[in-house]
């Protein structure tokens, strides 16, 4: 099973929707697409939507952290919607929730973003 990536930009936000499995074998494709999209634009913030993922391991966390590193010089922030509970637990245990904002599945994403940025 592979990975599906769709991105769109809205003002200072880059929205990233992923479907399928995010692991070591699919992360390079995602990374390349996002590195280019961010480098070639002036977006500040990245909003991942993982609701369509059927699996994600620490390779996916690497992708999220990598984007944080990419945009922090722009004072940007990274948000994640729809993270599976196993990965979310790892985020809290490792303290990554201090730098990456996890948005509840049932929250109004646009409202959370408006209040946060």
């Amino acid at each position, binding site marked *: *099973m592979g990975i599906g990536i769709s991105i769109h930009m809205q003002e200072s936000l880059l929205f990233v929707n992923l479907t399928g499995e995010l692991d070591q074998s699919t992360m390079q494709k995602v990374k390349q697409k996002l590195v280019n999209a961010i480098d070639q634009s002036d977006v500040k913030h990245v909003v991942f939507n993982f609701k369509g993922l059927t699996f994600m*391991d*620490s390779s996916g*966390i690497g992708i999220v952290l*990598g984007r944080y590193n990419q945009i922090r010089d722009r004072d940007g922030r990274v948000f994640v919607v729809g993270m599976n509970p196993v990965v979310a637990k*790892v985020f809290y*245990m*490792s303290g990554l929730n201090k730098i990456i904002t996890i948005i509840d599945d049932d929250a109004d994403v646009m409202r959370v973003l408006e209040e946060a940025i």
Partner: protein
Amino acid sequence: MRNEINVTLPAIVSNASLARLIIMGILAPLDADTQQLTEVKTVVSEAVTNAIIHGYEGNPEGIVEFNAVLEGRRLKVVIKDHGVGIDDVELAKQPLFTTKEDEERSGLGFMIMESFTDDFEVVSAPSVGTTVTFEREIL
């Protein structure tokens, strides 16, 4: 009931996905909830991915040995490589420690393996290889 599977997987990254399918296959008769299955699947994915990208550094000629035994509701998995090994296992286990920062590895693999297993062990020696063993009771 006892069940067991033994497979050898060439060290190609897509085989982490194959290993996840295998472990889901052996657990299927237990009717476990998604949360537990996801946890076990993630642990297997981390261990097999480590063997492939760290143990064999992506050399597809490397062989990862995968053994899973299910006794009743107790799962025991051994994932073994004959790759480069780990110099300092305790250091490697530290959260966010990674030797592959450029490749955007998060350094959370061992934390995941330790957190979602009942019993977890890593035995490694440089140039000999690494063996990860874990046990997990499926409720």
